[in-house]
């Protein structure tokens, strides 16, 4: 015997967006999303719904009647594209929140991405793996290790069954497995997985790519917790180097050269354009969040280290300053720039000081423009 709530048309089951039990609340903006309680509605709103409300309204509207087959096909295609866009967006957002440490908020977004991935690609396909990985990472962050293991096992199995699975996905899978084992305190197993992660990432992107740096960072953390400070130090140094050179490249390609500056100065009458107006960081949101997380934590570690080499701290500070500059946070950029100058006093490396001085000048200029 099925019971239908009286208010619903027969056969229509309204289920909570988050927990799939019969729902009693409706989102008043899109009118297509339902919740079992206010609590869940709030959680979803903060997590993802705010950003995808109107998209969902489009996707979930009842299928309009279209007379011709071409029309129907066109519409289907359109919907498909929208869905894929939605998947990408929710995934990036979820990943970003994970990097920011907001594990709980990441869950609704990850769920949304998983739901639409299943809809688009079907069950147990390789395309679902990233969503499972995000869910796994979120569960690790929430301390739900059994749940995390289940997600990761699912992802692992799917990867195993897909022989030509891309190395990027494999690398991510191993990274998450590593995080899981690290959370469990099984350090050797965690190291194995991180090693696999780094290997696959290096094969895909190269050893000095920012996408490989994450693996180094986590590995460094494990060594740090094991008390092998020298190894951890060297790994952290590698991470900082990778980010440092990447950010320096981004800055270089974005800042106009001296000549162009001189030219724009001579053109007094011309409109004074903000020189760095459309400065992009070249990173997506998740990568930005990752950079902030990684660089900050390494910086903290360096600051509290008693036996550090002075240039390590200086370089970490400089990298952070560049990062904040690229992200448009000039105040913080200046702050870390100053720190880097203080730290680099003991370093006798003229190139480094030179680039630091140039960077500070850039900050000043940018500060006056804005």
């Amino acid at each position, binding site marked *: 015997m*099925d019971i239908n709530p009286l208010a619903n048309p027969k056969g229509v089951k309204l289920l909570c967006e988050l927990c799939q*039990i019969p729902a009693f609340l409706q989102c008043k903006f899109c009118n297509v999303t339902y919740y079992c309680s206010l609590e869940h509605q709030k*959680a979803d709103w903060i997590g993802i719904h705010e950003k995808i409300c109107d998209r969902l309204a489009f996707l979930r509207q009842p299928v309009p009647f279209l007379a011709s087959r071409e029309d129907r096909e066109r519409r289907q295609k359109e919907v498909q594209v929208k869905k894929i866009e939605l998947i990408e967006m929710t995934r990036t957002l979820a990943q970003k929140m994970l990097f920011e440490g907001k594990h709980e908020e990441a869950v609704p977004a990850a769920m949304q991405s998983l739901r639409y991935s299943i809809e688009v690609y079907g069950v147990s396909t390789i395309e679902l793996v990233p969503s499972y990985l995000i869910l796994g990472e*979120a569960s690790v962050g929430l301390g739900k290790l059994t749940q995390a293991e289940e997600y990761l096992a699912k992802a692992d199995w799917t990867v195993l069954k897909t022989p030509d699975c891309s190395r990027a996905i494999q690398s991510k899978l191993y990274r998450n497995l590593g995080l899981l084992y690290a959370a469990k305190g099984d350090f050797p197993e965690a190291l*194995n997985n991180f090693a696999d992660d780094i290997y696959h990432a*290096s094969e895909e992107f190269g050893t000095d790519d920012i996408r490989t740096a994450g693996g180094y960072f986590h590995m460094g953390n494990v060594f740090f917790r094991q008390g092998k400070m020298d190894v951890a130090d060297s790994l952290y140094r*590698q991470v900082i180097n990778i980010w440092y050179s990447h950010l320096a490249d981004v800055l270089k390609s974005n800042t106009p050269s001296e000549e162009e500056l001189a030219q724009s100065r001579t053109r007094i009458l011309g409109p004074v354009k903000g020189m760095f107006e459309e400065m992009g960081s070249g990173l997506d949101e998740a990568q930005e969040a990752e950079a902030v997380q990684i660089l900050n934590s390494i910086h903290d570690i360096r600051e509290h280290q008693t036996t550090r080499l002075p240039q390590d701290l200086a370089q970490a500070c400089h990298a952070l300053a560049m990062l904040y500059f690229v992200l448009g946070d000039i105040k913080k950029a200046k702050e870390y720039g100053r720190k880097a100058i203080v730290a680099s006093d003991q370093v006798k490396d003229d190139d480094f000081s030179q680039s630091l001085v140039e960077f500070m000048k850039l900050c000043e200029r940018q500060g006056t423009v804005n």
Partner: protein
Amino acid sequence: MAATLPPINKNRNAVPSYGKPRPPPGGRLEPISPANAKGRRDRLAMEKSTALRNQMPILKKKDIAKFRNSYKHNLCLDMLTEGFHLFFCELVNLIRQQMEKREAAGPESFLWTKPVLQDQTEKLDMMKVHLTEAEAANRIGDFAKEYKARYDLAQFFKASEDDQWLVDHFFTTCLNVASKVETDGGKMQAEGHCNVGLCHQNNGLYGEAAKHFEAYHKLASENKEDWITSSGVSYYTDSCIKLYHIYTIIGTELGRTGEEEDAEASLETLTKALEMAKCSLDKKLEGESSYTLGMAYQKHNQLDTALTHLFNFYESCQGDSNSEGIGRACDAIAKIYARQGNKEKSVEFLKRFVELTEKTGLEKEYCLACHNLGNVCNSVGTYDEATEYFSKAYNISRALGDPDSTNVNRVQYGIAMAHRMMGKFANHVVVGDKTCMSRLVEWKSVRTDEFNKPIPDTVPGAAQHVMIPPPPPAEEKEESKEEAVEDSEDPGVREEGDGQTEGAAES
């Protein structure tokens, strides 16, 4: 927690429905166990397989990975779990570099026939041993040890012809490491520069090599006495010798292009080479260097300077009685004198050359000396001597069994003999009395050489020999080559044949 994590298996935690009873867990199989097998035979088979399964070791993830992954993959994983990430980077980049080079060269190139680094397990293992050592040393800041490890590795790869690029790589990194070592006053750095320089020299990058050797020289010259290699040579001397070699190579290369600017530069570099050879206090090198420089000057028509350098070489060779060197010096000096038109001096030196080689029994040089002397005599017009020397040269080269020089000498010998005969032949033609005519006819028909006999004195003054001018010397070699093809076995016939052609041309 506000958000519930979604379930993995839709079937298991099925969507809660409005009062609908849960369906049984769909699609899940009961565990297979001996207890629920039907029939005795089935049960026995089941028990057997369970027992077998229990005997097998339980594979862990890592063990499985060992079978599934490539050797390189496993090696990398091992390294990374131990924390040697710098080594990992280096290895991956090296392998990638090789693959890219291969790709760039295309599948037809010879690179594809050679094994790639990632398939050569013992080399990978060797790298692992040394590079982990190096990285461990790096971590504790013991750069000397790191240097040693990398150096050993480079030495290991030196043995194999295909791995020269690895040798280059490790020597270059050696140099980088050495520049961090501060305790030994740059000794390691000097070594590093030396090794990198040698690598560049092998690869034909002479300019780069020279730069590194110069750095090596500079470092070594600050510690002339203290630094001594294992073979007892001081670094300074060694650096001088290396620089001498590289300068000589560069100088000769430049000299070959034949352009005016390069010629200047070539002379300059060779002069530098000479200086270095002087610094190395090695008389022999100094001599060699003078010789090369002298030859270069000679090539660029600065004969006097060339002579001074060659005399230096000559003296240095005499100093340590290097007869082969003296021979070369004499030869070169004689050639220059010949070019200056100073025939007497030229002949004198060539004679010295001949004597020397005769004494020391250097057959090949002796042959060459005789040949050269013969040439000079030929051009001066002393045909008797020329014949004599060419016959010597011819006999020696025949004895040596060297077909090229035999042919050349044979022809030259013939020409010289013809020249010798020419005067008398012409004389007979000029005198033209009966005896002469009969002799000429005789010679024409049976090649009996009776021209040496005195001519009966029918006409006064007829017995005087007509002197014919010496022929231009240069073209002889060319024509000799052609004639050598239609060569006969007996030199006697040959000589007359030549004489005939020459004679026919004259008359």
